[in-house]
């Protein structure tokens, strides 16, 4: 565990990945239903395929792997297995996060904010979406902002990030999409939550839950 001012270690990163896998498996149908309304109806399946593969790969990762090593394994696995936009997007996010984590054995609050910021920047670099385009960026950016303002405690940082992502996901509902498949729908996308923003909220809540 971390807590008490302690950092987040490789075991936390591993628990994080496992918790995402579990959350995605539980909420696969819900994520897919969101994507069916304004996309191609595969977001839950895509992420479930990716995170089940991550679980398999984690088994062969060495015991004391750093947070960066775990994040890198998640990244390369998602890139190779997801098969939809969220593959390169989350893949790049975890890759940039792993680079930001570097060789560190554990992440303090400042490092954690760096890691989350790098993940968000990776998504923006890959997908070129702006805030308000009704994508996962609308969950990530408020999450990163809240994390940066949350102080020195890693649990508080993660909790702030998760709450902000959840609010950001909900706030995508009235929007018109300007990136991704939902952009084909014009005004018809209004009233529907962006599936990627919802899976982002799930991931960040999982990070907080296992910290």
């Amino acid at each position, binding site marked *: 565990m971390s807590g008490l001012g302690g950092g987040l270690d490789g075991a936390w990163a591993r628990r994080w990945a496992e918790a995402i896998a579990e959350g995605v498996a539980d909420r696969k149908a819900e994520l897919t239903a969101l994507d069916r309304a304004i996309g191609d109806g*595969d977001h839950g399946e895509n992420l479930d395929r990716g995170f089940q593969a991550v679980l398999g790969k984690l088994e062969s990762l060495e015991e004391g792997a750093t947070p960066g090593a775990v994040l890198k394994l998640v990244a390369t696995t998602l890139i190779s297995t997801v098969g939809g936009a969220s593959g390169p*997007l989350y893949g790049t996010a975890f890759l940039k996060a792993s680079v930001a984590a570097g060789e560190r054995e554990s992440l303090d609050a400042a490092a954690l904010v760096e890691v989350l910021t790098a993940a968000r920047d990776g998504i923006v670099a*890959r997908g070129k979406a702006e805030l308000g385009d009704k994508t996962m960026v609308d969950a990530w950016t408020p999450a990163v902002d809240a994390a940066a303002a949350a102080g020195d405690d890693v649990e508080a940082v993660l909790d702030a990030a998760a709450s902000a992502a959840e609010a950001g996901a909900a706030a995508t509902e009235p929007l018109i999409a300007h990136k991704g498949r939902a952009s084909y729908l014009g005004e018809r996308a209004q009233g529907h939550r962006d599936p990627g923003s919802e899976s982002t909220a799930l991931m960040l809540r999982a990070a907080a839950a296992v910290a």
Partner: protein
Amino acid sequence: MTVGLLVVSHSRLLAEGVVELAAQMAPGVALVAAGGTDDGGIGTSFDLVVAGLAEADGGDGVVVLCDLGSAVMTAETAIEVADAPERIRIADAPIAEGAVAAAVAAAHGATLDEVVAAAGTARGGA
């Protein structure tokens, strides 16, 4: 000097069909299809794209045609792990029409920049 082409689609059939169409007017050009997921489903496959980039590159570079935004993102991610990313370009062009125009240019010995430009002039339609 022959630039190769990689066609990245969510559909295996679509990618192979584009290659078949473009090949008619471009004998001798390396035209490679990377369509569908690893198991032939609808989606893009990073591994197929990485392998396709290597296959299409005979040394003079590769122009990549994509069907949707997520294919572009998969291609960009694959280019980052390619041996010679500096000679790979993603065309800002419709996948089928752009591939035909690019293939014709490549068949006539156009440079990498010229092939990208040729793809970009294609717009398709009546």
